[in-house]
């Protein structure tokens, strides 16, 4: 359990620095089990900061979403740092972006929090449907203590965690400037059980499955916008000349979009599951990402977002790289 007072003190200290523009963290959401990103611009703002298993968002998306609107005459660009609160998985996104030189190390202050698993909002809302006003969720070893309207229930973590947390190998931030609380030991291992099971299906079964999924896509691009690694200046689907993907929403274009996104994240996806969480249509996007992650791990012994000094997968070459897939 994270000491929220310690978190607030750290945020206060960070935002008090002259070279920090703002700190992004979490605050309580507006209803039920929601937590929501929040920003501290001045020391008092730190008071609303929280950290609980409901803090599911990967906030590293915010430095990447920084907009640079045209400056007025005489106005200087604000080049101060951004403070970001990160969990283990979130920190890997920063590492990956640093590796790709999408961000400079001295432009972020990383406030790390060890995390032993968050709660999938869909799962907990299904368990406690309806009109919930006051909730509190605490982390208690292998259980979540969920208090709803004054009654506390202890629920095994496996029942409420998203898939990524069940096999998380990096509960501690891999890179941070300040660490809150103590590092966690974890024996969890990514075994790709679901990918392996899916691989066994016939080609037709797999295609039918994905057709059904992609048919649901409404191309709102929530997957892209919630993803910290989708930070292209202009996304391929937005380009008009040439237009790579048509605006028509149909199976063909939807498939093009979802597959091109999966491939553009090959060797870059750090598995934070934000795309799947944000998808309003419930498309299991992590199934695609995990499959690619597994292949890359097996073929190139590479894992995204572990070391900022390493070169990105697609920017390095080893003479003994396997090449059976080249026709």
């Amino acid at each position, binding site marked *: 359990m994270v000491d929220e007072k310690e978190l607030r003190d750290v945020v206060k200290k960070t935002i008090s620095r002259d070279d920090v523009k703002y700190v992004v963290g979490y605050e309580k*959401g*507006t*209803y*039920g089990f*929601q*937590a*929501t*990103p*929040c*920003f501290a611009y001045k020391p008092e703002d730190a008071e609303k900061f929280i950290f609980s298993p409901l803090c599911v*968002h990967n906030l590293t*998306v*915010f430095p990447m*979403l920084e*907009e640079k*609107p*045209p400056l007025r005459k005489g106005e200087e660009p604000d080049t101060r740092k951004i403070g970001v609160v990160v969990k283990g998985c979130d920190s890997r996104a920063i590492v990956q972006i640093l590796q790709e030189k999408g961000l400079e190390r001295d432009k972020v202050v990383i406030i790390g929090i060890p995390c032993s698993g968050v709660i999938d909002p869909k799962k907990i809302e299904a368990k406690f*449907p*309806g*009109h*919930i*006003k006051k909730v509190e969720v605490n982390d208690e070893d292998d259980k979540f203590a969920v208090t709803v309207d004054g009654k506390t229930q202890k629920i095994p973590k496996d029942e409420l965690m998203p898939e990524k947390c069940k096999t998380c190998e990096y509960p501690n931030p891999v890179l941070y400037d300040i660490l809150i609380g103590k590092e966690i030991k974890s024996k969890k291992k990514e075994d790709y059980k679901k990918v392996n099971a899916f691989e066994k299906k016939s080609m037709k079964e797999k295609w039918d499955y994905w057709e*059904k999924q992609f048919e*649901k896509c*409404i*191309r*709102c*691009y*929530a997957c*892209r*916008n*919630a993803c910290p690694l989708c930070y292209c200046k202009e996304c391929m689907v*937005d380009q008009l000349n040439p237009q790579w993907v*048509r*605006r*028509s*929403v*149909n199976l063909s274009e939807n498939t093009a979009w979802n597959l091109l996104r999966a491939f553009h994240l090959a060797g870059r996806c750090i598995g934070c599951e*934000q795309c799947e*969480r*944000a998808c*309003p*249509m*419930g498309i299991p996007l992590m199934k695609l990402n995990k499959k690619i992650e597994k292949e890359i791990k097996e073929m190139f012994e590479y894992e995204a977002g572990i070391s900022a000094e390493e070169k990105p997968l697609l920017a390095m070459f080893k003479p003994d790289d396997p090449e059976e897939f080249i026709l």
Partner: protein
Amino acid sequence: MDKMILLKDDLSKFITELLKKNKVFAPIQSDDTILFDQITRPSEMNLDFCKSEIPPKNLLFHQTETLFKFTPGTKAKIESVDVDEKKVIFGIRPCDAKSIAILDHAFKGDYEDPYFLSRRDNTALVGLSCNKPEINCFCTSFDDSPASSKYVDILLTDIGDKYYVEMNNEKGKQLTEGMSNLFKHAKESDAKKKKEVEKKAVDMISRHQKTNGIVEKLDKIFENPFWKEVAFKCVGCGTCTYLCPTCHCFDIQDESTLTKGARVRVWDTCMNPEYTLQASGYNPRPARTNRVKNRIYHKYNYYPKNFDVIACVGCGRCIDLCPVNIDIIDVVTRAGEVKA
């Protein structure tokens, strides 16, 4: 307005009758999602739901719509597209039905939209009262009710072993012509039961938005830093607008190959920077904050000024599915409290 009774056991007979002369669209469950789609048998629909993932506006205002087809080149031929056959949307919720009445203003405005309007004329709305509103439902904030019959042709309300049926207009009566054996006149006790069911549903709605004086208030706080505070966390996806039953912006594009082409209309979203990007490269809404503000202003200021109705029905979809909990109940209520 005729008040009738339809026994639950007769519901499938009613649907079967409707299917004889109309295409029927009803809520269908697939995996975890409920969507309105065409049914061929009554057993395909699922009425145990609160709201469909995508509002049924997409049956009248398609996400992708071919306006006409053409053959490119000097000898271009233009081919028009058939307008829909008679259609019934069965099980539409009162909030979603209201949204269609709101959309009428936009599509009947300065320019009549023949695609939407002809489809609208050919579509009958058979509503189903909402007996189990969910956490983010707030239709009562607009003086509406989850069992309002105002915007549908026929409204069914589940009152236990039967449906209380309100035939709202001529369209509703025509739709049920020749089915008099299925409907019986309602008794006083049935009407009372409906009132009870309605009250129970209204009482379940726990969240409320304060909209008193919001139109005038928004005029005064356009430049207020409040907007940055509520909108800075927006990640800029289009979920809120695509899933909004009253959002109706679109883009028009020609999509062609060497031999054939089509002019298509697709949903667009004001959350997309490209939406306001001008050919010169100038963008009047350069930041996400500007865009979130526009979404609120369009619904709570521009639309009421133009058409005298707030363009929000309180379905709560944008709240349910926003990945960062931008909550329109909270935003509008707080906007009302901002010091101008």
